[in-house]
């Protein structure tokens, strides 16, 4: 057990190996820092985290070191004394900030980072009000193309070298480097070798200032207008924790949120830039029924009772002919509700798992210069491109003991053994689509098809009822990732048009009252389905809850 003293306040840091920045964090004291990042090596070059350090002897006497030291490089030991607010430490921090601003253009009004910029924040908190420099600033030319998704405003760079270390240590692709020397140093790429690896845009998050900007987000919104919610990326089964930044009904960007249980600090570009379908104008906006071969709008209040009755009447005649298809994009709560609805019609109703999109093989980083993966793996982009296969499978397993594949259902449909089908799809548009034309044709002769989806697909062309689904960015619930980690997602944007969240629709089909409230449903789910028992508190916390599963052990 080690005790450190931060500005005179004793803090127990246990047996963890921490540096002074982390130790001070435990005491609630912010030591400003730029170059240090918990996932990257220590270079101690920005000199922002200078503090006074001393040692407290067992007899209570304190000896301070004569000079300021970088907190990121100094390990916290028992009896370490950290002083961040002495004149000496404050002067050193102030001086570093003044130095950093010497050649910084101070173009905050047009800078994308303004509002979440560490240079702004630290200057406000630790810097001096005015620069003493009256000379001209260096103005290195901007580099609009250093990668397909990243642009570099060279003059704003403070040379913390986080981005360079990221490409060397995490992605391993080493595209970025520092060229020139002294105050003419710049970040750059080798000619003809742009920053195009699949983790590239993480450098934008790592950049403490507005030097590296995401082309996807550039000049779209001022960050203070964005509403930020905790969520989980839905693009692969890694289930990266993210911040979902949206405004009104538009998603503007996704940023990785640190989660040691899921992915760590970063996320891939596939997930980060894969959200655009949420804002697509092609999405279904209202519930529709097919009349005379044409889809015509029908209000929710009319369409839902109709669907309920239709399913009930089919189930009375041929319960085994009723099939529910639950896509792996549903949340656990939604899967639970629709399964409950369909199984309530009759125990013989069959539930199938929707198509699970698999693309290639798992892609691990870091890679070497030839693109071959190397150990130890620091980041994995999974081949399974859906967020909740495990969660939905567990629901299916609970309700009918076995998991029927989508191929099986299609096969049965082609043989005319399916009388009614509820497709709870919610698939994002990905190359190839979630269902092929041939498969769709085999479903064509089913007498009753409800297609509950986001976007037009081969099925919605002939489905009898088309319900607009909500995307993951618009709903709340639980995703279980490839390793069985249950994480909560929250709605970040309001669905447009008449879209209702899928869970709400299922509640209405079940004739249950009230609005969907994920924690309440989660408690219900935990009480009923043993696999989810660990979620009984309803709240999953920041990092989610690992569900222990004997099968994977």
């Amino acid at each position, binding site marked *: 057990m080690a005790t450190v003293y931060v500005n005179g306040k004793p803090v127990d840091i246990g047996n963890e190996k921490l540096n002074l920045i982390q130790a001070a964090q435990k005491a609630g004291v912010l030591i400003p820092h730029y170059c240090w990042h918990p996932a990257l090596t220590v*270079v*101690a070059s920005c000199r922002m985290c200078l503090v006074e350090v001393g040692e407290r002897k067992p007899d209570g006497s304190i000896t301070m070191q004569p000079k300021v030291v970088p907190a990121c490089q100094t390990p916290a030991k028992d009896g370490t004394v950290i002083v961040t607010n002495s004149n000496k430490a404050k002067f*050193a921090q102030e001086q570093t900030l003044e130095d950093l601003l010497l050649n910084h253009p101070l173009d905050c009004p047009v800078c994308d980072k303004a509002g979440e910029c560490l240079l702004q924040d630290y200057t406000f908190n630790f810097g001096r009000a005015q620069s003493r420099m009256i000379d001209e600033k260096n103005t290195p030319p901007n580099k609009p193309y250093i990668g397909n998704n990243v642009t570099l405003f060279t003059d704003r760079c403070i040379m913390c070298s986080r981005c360079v270390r990221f490409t060397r240590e995490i992605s391993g692709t080493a595209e970025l480097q520092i060229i020139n*020397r*002294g105050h003419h140093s710049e970040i750059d790429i080798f000619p003809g070798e742009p920053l195009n690896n699949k983790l590239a845009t993480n450098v934008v998050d790592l950049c403490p200032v507005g030097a590296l900007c995401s082309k996807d987000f550039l000049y779209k919104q001022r960050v203070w207008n964005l509403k930020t919610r905790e969520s989980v990326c839905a693009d692969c089964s890694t289930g990266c924790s993210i911040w979902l930044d949206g405004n009104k009904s538009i998603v503007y960007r996704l940023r990785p949120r640190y989660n040691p249980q899921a992915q760590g600090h970063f996320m891939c570009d596939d997930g980060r830039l894969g959200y655009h379908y949420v804002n697509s104008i092609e999405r279904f906006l209202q519930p529709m029924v097919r009349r005379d071969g044409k889809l015509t709008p029908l209000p929710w209040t009319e369409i839902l009772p109709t669907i309920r009755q239709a399913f009930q009447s089919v189930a009375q005649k041929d319960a085994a002919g009723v099939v529910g298809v639950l896509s792996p994009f549903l949340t656990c709560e939604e899967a639970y509700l629709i399964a409950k609805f369909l199984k309530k019609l009759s125990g013989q109703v069959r539930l199938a798992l929707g198509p699970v999109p698999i693309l290639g093989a798992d892609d691990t980083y870091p890679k070497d210069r030839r693109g071959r993966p190397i150990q130890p793996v620091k980041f994995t982009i999974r081949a399974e491109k859906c967020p909740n296969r495990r969660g939905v499978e567990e629901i299916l397993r609970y309700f009918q003991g076995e998991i029927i594949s989508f191929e099986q259902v299609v096969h049965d449909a082609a043989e005319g053994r399916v009388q009614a089908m509820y497709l709870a799809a919610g698939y994002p548009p990905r190359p190839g689509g979630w269902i092929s034309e041939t498969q769709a044709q085999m479903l064509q002769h089913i007498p009753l098809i409800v297609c509950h989806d986001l976007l037009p697909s081969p099925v919605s062309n002939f489905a009898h009822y088309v319900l607009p689904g909500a995307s993951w960015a618009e709903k709340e619930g639980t995703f279980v990732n490839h390793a069985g980690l249950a994480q909560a997602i929250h709605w970040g944007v309001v669905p447009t048009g008449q879209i209702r969240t899928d869970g709400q629709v299922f509640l209405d089909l079940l004739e249950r009252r009230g609005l969907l409230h994920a924690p309440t449903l989660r408690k219900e789910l935990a009480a009923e389905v043993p696999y989810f028992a660990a979620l009984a508190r309803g709240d999953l916390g920041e990092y989610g809850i690992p569900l222990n599963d004997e099968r994977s052990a």
Partner: protein
Amino acid sequence: MADFEPVLLRRILKKASPWLDAYRADGGYRALQKAVHEMTPAQVVDTVKTSGLRGRGGAGFPTGLKWTFLPKDHPGPIYMCINADESEPCTFNNRILMEEDPHQVLEGIILSCYATRASTAYVYLRYEYGRSYRVMQQAIDELYNNNLLGRNILGRDFHLDIYLHRGAAAYICGEETALLESLEGKRGWPRIKPPFPAVEGAFRKPTVVNNIETVACVTHIVDRGADWFKSMGVPPDPKNPRDTGSYGPKLYCISGHVNKPGCVELPLGITLRELIDKYGGGVWKGRKAKGAIPGGISMGIMTEAEFDTPLDFAGPAKVGCLGLGTAAVTVFDEETSIVDVLYNICRFFAHESCGQCTPCREGTGWMLKIMERIRRGQGRLEDLNILEVAGDQMGIIPGTTICGLADGAGWPVKNAIRKFRGEFEQYIRGAKKSRLLELVKTH
């Protein structure tokens, strides 16, 4: 000290041949024979330690002590890096040693490797030293042909390879950890310490980094004994517990506004005035000196009134300079504008700062911009305060940078401002203009 017999420059002054046979005829490789056949490595280390030899590269760290920092019983390999990246302005003693008497240096390297059990030595030459490279390579080839390098040197269980490595002409690569980075093929950026090179240096193995002149001294310490070495120089100051004394001969480089610029070998402790007047032939054109740089420009500036300071490891610090440095004295006469001197210094450091730590990267550039402006005649009096504070707060001594380049960049600035403030103020007020600028204007 007029009758001092040169040791390191002994053969150079005689214009002796750099070939192995000639060096052997002058008593060369006697020390190596003695060490390999009669002494254990630990005894060699002890000899160097008792001699009080301090590193000649600038910092003056005791060499024997540095060698003892290597981990005991390390399975190896241990590397020896010889710093011949002699890039401190006005310093040229390593070049003379390498070009004129390469075997003396190489014998020192072999002895140092024997003492530290290093199996490979890298000599990091600055890029500009093409002739040194060729002469040294020739000498190394001779040694391989004569069983003084390679496997089983002199029939004993002692193996050593020496490689020459030419840098890419960067001042920062003279800093020991930047040198190691550069040697490994990376960007020459100093490493954070710990770990120190003795624990984890080149290629993540224990490494000793020594200067050319230091290893040349090792040759003579082993040959003539520690007591001989200690008979020269200045004993430690009893009032300063951190002073370990300045023993042995030192190569002083004299340049600038003197009648006879050059390199002389003298025991440590000669005063600057004696050095200039007696060995440098006095200030040129019958003028008086305004000041001098005691040991490469990073060590600061001495005024004429401070010329009686002895040039040993502790001396220059007594008058506010950083230290002895490389003992390269540059004199500037009374006609020289201090503004021009400081501008030139600032330009050098702004160009050579590696750009890693913020205070040095931005600070050197800022100081240069201020000096440019002052020189243009647009200076303000408060600029002098800014320069003084900026010079004071960067470096390892206040703790704001990784390596000592920033100390060296800040020191002459604050020295110049403190010691010549009147002249700066006069210049800024417009009373006196730079002569150099007038010369440029007339062209």
